[in-house]
């Protein structure tokens, strides 16, 4: 009898404990590949930082999975007829984490900070903006120096993120006060960033988790092991080599999207003496290199066939892809003929790769393929910071490098191949390309813009300052009980609608 009473009371206690369990704060734990840098949207530079900002800070506008610009803090917007004024209508129910109201004055203060702060990294993104004004609390007006078709897409990211104007001080990054669905709790560098739900958010009912913990776990194997062990609920950038085993695990699921950027080989065509060799000087040699590479086999050998072969700077499915330029098939005979035409029987050239296992393997596969066409590649590898520096100083013949991608097509092509482009490390220069790409960034009409990109790409595919190779698919792994994850091609984690079943 005594035992029965004990059992019964234990059962009762157990039942009583149940509702308490249901109310226990729910936490979503996300594994990141790196530790983010400064948590100040105007100074931040890392990709993982942008993932954290998605929870922490609201933006003026956002994108949907088709890269269409959709409302966020701005509910509607329009450009003036001459393209020099952008007027936005703003929400009136948004609040900052310190309780202050969001309004046009606050937006103006943030945009001006982004444009003027000495160490702001957003200056080039907002370079076309002449001034910002706030005629009334719900109206924000941008005056532009020139029509800028890329501006809206810049405002979907850090340049359009809003900090509470009262909090703007030198130490803002230690405790950022934004207006996003989650507010800052703590950060342990190299370990974790903790956010908790902001109850005053205008869309608070769409966010199910009470807490978000971002943990930086650089090693992909360890990150996956943590997910398997239930220490994480989801992780970003699952390695392609782990995709199959994660898919085979019934506790996990894998979701993917095409990355916005490109991966390829940048060729030094015009920068210092390093360009003075057949690969740099003769487009036929570059065409031969491109033809000697079997992009499908490359993806199969190095990436288990999970990355899409590519020959343009835009992601698969992008509306700016040129249909007239399909991914070329490998053609060794034609490559050899082109070399012969260029008066070369054998070309010797150096390829710079980053010293990690994947890039080393990639380099070797390219080397073996090019060899068959008569192009003799020597591989030089160094760690990324050195590669970047040498590349920028023109100390390279070819460099195996990629780009993380931008929402607007301009960000994937203009800086790399226009004469004055910041990222044009091979110093490629073509007046016609400059003209087409300069024009394209000022045209708001998609069809008109695309004509310029198609025309520029036609020239670029012939001259090949960059040989594009593949598109990096972005893989996320989640515990099977995590529902409602929608991936956008920017590879960021939007927390809206995520729940545990």
């Amino acid at each position, binding site marked *: 009898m005594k035992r029965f009473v004990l059992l019964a009371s234990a059962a009762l206690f157990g039942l009583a404990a149940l509702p308490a369990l249901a109310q226990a704060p729910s936490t979503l734990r996300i594994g990141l590949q790196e*530790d983010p*840098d*400064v948590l100040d949207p105007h*100074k931040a*530079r*890392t990709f993982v930082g942008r993932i954290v900002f998605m929870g922490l800070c609201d933006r003026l506008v956002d994108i949907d999975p088709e890269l269409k610009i959709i409302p966020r803090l701005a509910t509607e917007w329009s450009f003036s007829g001459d393209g020099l004024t952008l007027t936005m209508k703003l929400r009136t129910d948004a609040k900052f984490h310190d309780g202050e109201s969001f309004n046009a004055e606050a937006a103006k203060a943030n945009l001006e900070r982004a444009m003027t702060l*000495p*160490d*702001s*990294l957003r*200056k*080039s*993104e907002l370079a076309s903006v002449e001034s910002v004004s706030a005629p009334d609390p719900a109206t924000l007006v941008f005056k532009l120096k020139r029509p800028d078709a890329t501006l809206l897409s810049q405002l979907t990211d850090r340049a359009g993120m809003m900090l509470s104007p009262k909090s703007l001080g030198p130490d803002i*990054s*230690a405790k950022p006060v934004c207006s996003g669905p989650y507010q800052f709790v703590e950060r*342990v*560098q*190299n*370990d*974790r960033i903790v956010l908790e739900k902001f109850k005053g958010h205008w869309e608070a009912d769409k966010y199910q988790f009470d807490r978000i913990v971002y*943990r*930086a*776990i*650089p*090693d992909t*194997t*360890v990150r996956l*092991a*943590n997910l*398997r*062990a*239930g*220490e994480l609920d989801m992780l970003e950038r699952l390695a392609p080599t782990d995709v199959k085993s994660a898919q085979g695990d019934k506790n996990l699921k894998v979701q993917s999207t095409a990355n916005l950027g490109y991966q390829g080989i940048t060729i030094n065509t015009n920068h210092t003496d390093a360009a003075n060799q057949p690969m740099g000087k003769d487009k036929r040699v570059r065409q031969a290199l491109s033809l000697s590479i079997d992009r499908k086999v490359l993806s199969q050998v190095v990436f288990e066939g999970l990355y899409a072969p590519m020959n343009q700077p835009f992601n698969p499915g992008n509306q700016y892809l040129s249909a007239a330029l399909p991914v070329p098939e490998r053609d060794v005979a034609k490559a050899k003929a082109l070399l012969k035409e260029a008066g070369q029987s054998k070309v010797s050239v150096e390829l710079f790769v980053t010293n990690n296992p994947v890039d080393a393997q990639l380099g070797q596969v390219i080397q073996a393929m090019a060899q068959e066409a008569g192009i003799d590649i020597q591989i030089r590898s*160094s*760690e*990324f*910071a*050195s590669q*970047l*520096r*040498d590349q*920028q100083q023109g100390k390279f013949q070819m460099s195996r490098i990629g*780009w*993380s991608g931008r929402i607007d097509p301009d960000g994937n092509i203009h*800086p790399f191949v226009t004469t004055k482009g*910041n*990222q044009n490390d091979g110093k490629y220069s073509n007046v016609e390309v400059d003209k087409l790409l300069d024009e394209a960034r000022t045209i708001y009409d998609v069809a008109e813009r695309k004509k310029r990109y198609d025309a520029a790409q036609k020239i670029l595919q012939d001259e090949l300052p960059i040989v594009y190779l593949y598109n990096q698919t972005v893989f996320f792994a989640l515990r099977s009980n995590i529902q409602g994850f929608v991936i956008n091609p920017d590879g960021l984690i939007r927390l809206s609608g995520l729940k545990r079943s």
Partner: protein
Amino acid sequence: MLALIGRRLLIAIPTLFLVSLFVFALQRALPGDPFLVIAGEERDPEVIARLRQIYRLDDPIAVQFFAWLGQVIQGDFGRSLRTGEPVLGLIIQKLGVTFQLAVASMLVAIGIGIPAGIIAARRKDTLADYSASAVALFGLSVPHFWLGIMLILLVSVELRWLPASGFESIFSDPKAAIERLIMPAFVLGGGLAASLMRHTRSAMLEVLQSDYVRTARAKGLAEDAVINRHALRNALVPIITLSTILFGELLAGAVLTEQVFTIPGFGKLIVDAVFNRDYGVVQGVVLCTAIGFIVMNLLADVLYILVNPRLRDS
């Protein structure tokens, strides 16, 4: 004793100066520009120029060095290029983490290594001796990162006994802290236990053959008393030296172990700082490590004197 400590501290000053000069020069010789990393993918030339100015990287290297040194003497280690946090605060925070890992690993190392060494010496050339040596050889040869990943896969993923990684402070949540420390402490301490075992064994063997041990036995002392009171105490002198040298190995091992178990400690701090060309952090960390070594060596000297009275007069 105080004179000894004072003398040692004076010698430490030029050592630290040379160490910081060396690290400063070495870092500047590293290829790669920190601001190409820090300025973000866009690499806006205006931003890069501005950053170089803020961090005085356009000054001659000698000017940079003495400016840095002047600040360090005043206790200002500068700020991290990457996150803008003060370097000293970072170092103190991370040191606390690695200290907990180091203590746990040392406990594992001493708890396994010394008893195993004593047993192996007392039962020389028996099965116990051979198996202890075999295990020690394994402990010495197996790479930390491999053992770490294998343990995570077995203990956390398959058996679900312990969390796979991360860190909690022992002072804020002891249970979570111990659960998270067991595997890394075993990985890091295991290798050290092996060296300690080998050295304890040989030191004990040497001492056990000495005259005074024979005398102790001859006068009829129990074997345990011979070992514990006479032999072990003398055998410990070289082992203490070794333990302090192992402290260095511990820090080096922590670099890999912290990566595998994603422990936000000192080792992880320096690896990340080197890859990000975060000059201020690298310099601060190396300087603190050098200070740590000097203090450990001093501690070893003090400990010798404590265990070996003969050294007290000299």
